[in-house]
């Protein structure tokens, strides 16, 4: 049995456990146990992968296996991971553990909540480990309804509106993705000889440039909706802010990376000629997202909205990296996906913890948090500093890599885009320091805040796990880059062969 299947079986067992046990008591423990097992499994698979690579296995993807599903349409449940997928799976495992720990105090409909969270994590694992485009889409869609229900049932603020907007916009993105992958399937048959959904087989086929351009735009925009690419980002601020804490962590931390991974693996890797011709469109959109996201964040007073727009801005870096089409930029984009995933999860977790205690998320109503609840305040500060790219944390490494990778493209257009992206750091610094200054430092504004209790064991656990991730990547980024080096080269090599044609 393929060990990758563990990452699907453990969540399924957790779901069964959650559904079967009587209400309340054991649900949370089962969910937590399941997620910790998934983390252990993910780390185990990574270690196994690294050893296999050291032993000299140079296949593009390891742990491959395939189970026939619907043969007339060549749909097979085929699995396979490379460094990039593994990194995303690790990210998912870490964020899910943290999310479950942070939701320890949920009172309302506990079973349903953890059921939906585990279902979301299942969909993310499946998405990252499959090499068949139809199955990829299956897992992408699987997440839509859990997100809708999580925001609608446990959210706050205008939750029904946000949930519906999120569901419809993501479905719109999915429809574009499906049209794109069906196009790939049929064009592969027409020009390549066999109809296939398999990513590895599709990467061997060179489609005519015009077809590649159309499919590239369809797929980039479709997956871009998931990454909150401008101008399809409007679901993100309302969606992230109305969602309950664990759902926000998952949405911003993992779900937006589904889009980024899709753009890299499907739109760019499989359609290099289209990417070469048309990536400039997305460089423009990414630069706008970075700048606009940063300035929009400046205007926000609600901490969660602030973080949501900041996510739009940071995911703009991911899109910029992928659209710049250089090896270093790809590496930077993958690192930024991981780094931002952990950082934003930490950010949302801290905001959630503050909100649970102070019942407000408005930055100007909070103040002096650091004195009363130092642990949570520190977690907030760390996530903020990582967001603005302080060296020592993962944000610095990933953003630097993207800038260096983007600077490799000579040409006025690319240079301007890179400069705009770099300049946004200043704006980021402004809003982060302002938020910290208002909310965390300073004097206490409201008397009740004197009675706030600091983080409980579960919340501490979640925060420490995420902070560890940020610091490890920040201080030892070579761990990450060694893992994905061969894979970004593989993706970039398609562009070398295309330009040689």
């Amino acid at each position: 049995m393929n060990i990758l299947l563990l990452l699907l079986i453990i969540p399924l067992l957790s779901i069964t456990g959650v559904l079967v046990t009587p209400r309340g008591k054991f649900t949370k423990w089962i969910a937590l146990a399941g997620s910790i097992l998934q983390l252990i499994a993910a780390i185990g698979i990574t270690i196994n992968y690294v050893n296999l690579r050291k032993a000299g296995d140079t296949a593009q993807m390891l742990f491959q296996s395939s189970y026939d599903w619907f043969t007339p349409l060549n749909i097979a449940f085929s699995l396979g991971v490379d460094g990039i997928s593994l990194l995303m799976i690790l990210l998912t495992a870490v964020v899910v553990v943290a999310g479950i720990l942070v939701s320890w105090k949920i009172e309302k409909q506990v079973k349903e909540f953890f059921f939906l969270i585990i279902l979301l994590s299942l969909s993310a694992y499946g998405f990252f480990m499959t090499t068949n485009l139809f199955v990829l889409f299956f897992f992408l869609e699987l997440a839509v309804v859990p997100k809708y229900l999580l925001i609608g049932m446990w959210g706050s603020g205008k939750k029904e509106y946000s949930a519906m907007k999120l569901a419809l916009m993501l479905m719109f993105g999915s429809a574009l993705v499906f049209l794109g992958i069906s196009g790939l399937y049929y064009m592969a048959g027409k020009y390549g000889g066999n109809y296939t959904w398999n990513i590895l087989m599709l990467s061997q086929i060179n489609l005519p440039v015009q077809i590649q351009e159309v499919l590239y735009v369809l797929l980039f925009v479709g997956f871009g909706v998931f990454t909150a690419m401008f101008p399809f980002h409007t679901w993100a601020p309302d969606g992230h802010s109305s969602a309950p804490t664990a759902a926000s962590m998952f949405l911003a931390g993992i779900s937006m990376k589904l889009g980024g991974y899709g753009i890299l693996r499907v739109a760019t890797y499989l359609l290099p000629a289209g990417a070469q011709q048309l990536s400039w469109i997305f460089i423009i959109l990414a630069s706008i997202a970075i700048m606009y996201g940063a300035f929009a964040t400046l205007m926000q007073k609600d901490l969660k909205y602030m973080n949501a727009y900041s996510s739009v801005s940071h995911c703009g870096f991911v899109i910029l990296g992928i659209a710049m089409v250089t090896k270093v930029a790809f590496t930077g984009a993958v690192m930024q996906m991981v780094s931002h995933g952990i950082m934003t999860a930490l950010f949302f977790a801290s905001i959630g913890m503050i909100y649970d205690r102070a019942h407000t998320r408005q930055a100007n109503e909070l103040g002096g948090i650091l004195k009363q609840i130092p642990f949570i305040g520190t977690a907030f500060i760390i996530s903020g500093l990582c967001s603005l790219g302080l060296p020592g944390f993962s944000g610095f490494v990933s953003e630097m890599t993207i800038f260096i990778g983007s600077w490799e493209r000579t040409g006025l257009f690319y240079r301007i885009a890179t400069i705009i992206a770099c300049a946004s750091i200043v704006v980021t610094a402004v809003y982060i320091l302002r938020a910290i200054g208002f909310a965390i430092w300073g004097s206490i504004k409201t008397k009740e805040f004197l009675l706030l209790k600091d983080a409980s064991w579960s919340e501490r656990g979640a925060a420490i796990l995420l902070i560890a991730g940020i610091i490890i990547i920040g201080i030892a980024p070579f761990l990450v880059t060694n893992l994905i080096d061969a894979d970004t080269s593989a993706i970039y090599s398609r562009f070398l062969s295309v330009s040689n044609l």
Partner: protein
Amino acid sequence: MDIALLFRFEIIVAILIFALIAGALFDFGMKAKPFVFTMNILLFVTFLIGFLPIPEGYYFSEFFRSSGLIVLQKNIINLGVLLISLTSYNWLIKSDERLEFYVLMLCSVLGVYLMLSSGNVLMLYLGIEMSSIPIAAMSNLNLRERRSSEAGTKLILSSSFSTGIMLFGISLLYGAVGDLSFTHVLANINPDSLTIFAFVLIISGFAFKMSIVPFHLWTADVYEGSPVPVSNFLSVISKGSVVFIFLTVLYTLFGKLQEEWLYAITILSILSMTIGNLFALRQMNAKRFLAFSSIAQVGFVLVGMAGASDVSVTSVVYFILIYMLSNIAAFGVIGAVNDKTGSESLNKFKGLYKSNPFLALMMAIALFSLAGVPPVAGFFAKLFLLAAGFKSGIYVLLAFAGVNLVLSLYNYLRVVKYMFIDETNEPLEKIQPATTLKIALYACLIGLIVFSFAGPFFNYIHSLSI
């Protein structure tokens, strides 16, 4: 023995009909519950007989055709009839017209069988007529309600008119080709103006039965006025069987006219999907809502048909099966809520999850399947149709299909929102669903999950259709 196997469905159903009529005439007078129970058992036996081996071929100078695919289609219809009978338990017990319901339904089903296994256009027409006339009487079975009579009248008038038009088309086709058996038509048809005109008229007749825009105007009112089991039957059996035979009409009868009918089907599909979804946005009556949703679903089926790829037939058959399971489950829940409260308004669904979690979950799963959301089988059904439709190369059609995926999701999520998220001041009491309803709902649930992951079933359908 061969003849018995060949005609097994028709023989059993005919015997049942005569037995029921005899029972009525001679007043055997069974009480309600044993009667319904016996009928359910008999319908289940009919369904099981469908799995026996199949002789293939043409009989009765090509008026009767048998093949693996046809038997599968008939058995799908049997499954649908069985599930409808199971979910309608409460209505049947309370109604005085039980016997009439079963007789009429079985007559309609017999017509469906003849239609599905027709090898000659005349037999096809006979089957369609035989299947649609009893339904008009069935629509009227809530004898004390005015809107039920209105539904019955609307249905019979518009149904007769449309089959009249279809008959006109058939007569023109006869004039163009010379003989009406499928093999003869297939060999001798050519796209001259008489044939195309005949085609337009025949398509109009079929479009009425399938509720395709702009022939759909009867759908909402008839579904709203009829009793819930009859709406169930209309939306699933009547529609599904006509879709099955429409596949034969498009690909076998008029296969050579593909260039001509491709754009017609495209336009019909775009109109049906869009108008069905847009009109469903505003509906607050559960049955009207499902009526418009079924219009949109059939529009989606036409996308798959337009593709005419080798998976088209497979995808359509698979889709109708999944659609059937989802719709029967949805109508079952609506029926249960209606039996308890007497209301079909979607407002009654508000907060359903808190008061009746089982019913709310079943309804949600049925709606997710209709919307095309994983992990239920509706996802695969809808997307296979879309993938099959890709081969047509008409990108406008695919774009509209994509937009309609979003629109339909909104419609179904709206109901899910009522059930799970909205709160109400007048919560529903706990509804104790009848045992048979529970069995049927579980069967639909299991079917929807199993058919997702059981690839072999899809492969089996594919092997039959080639």
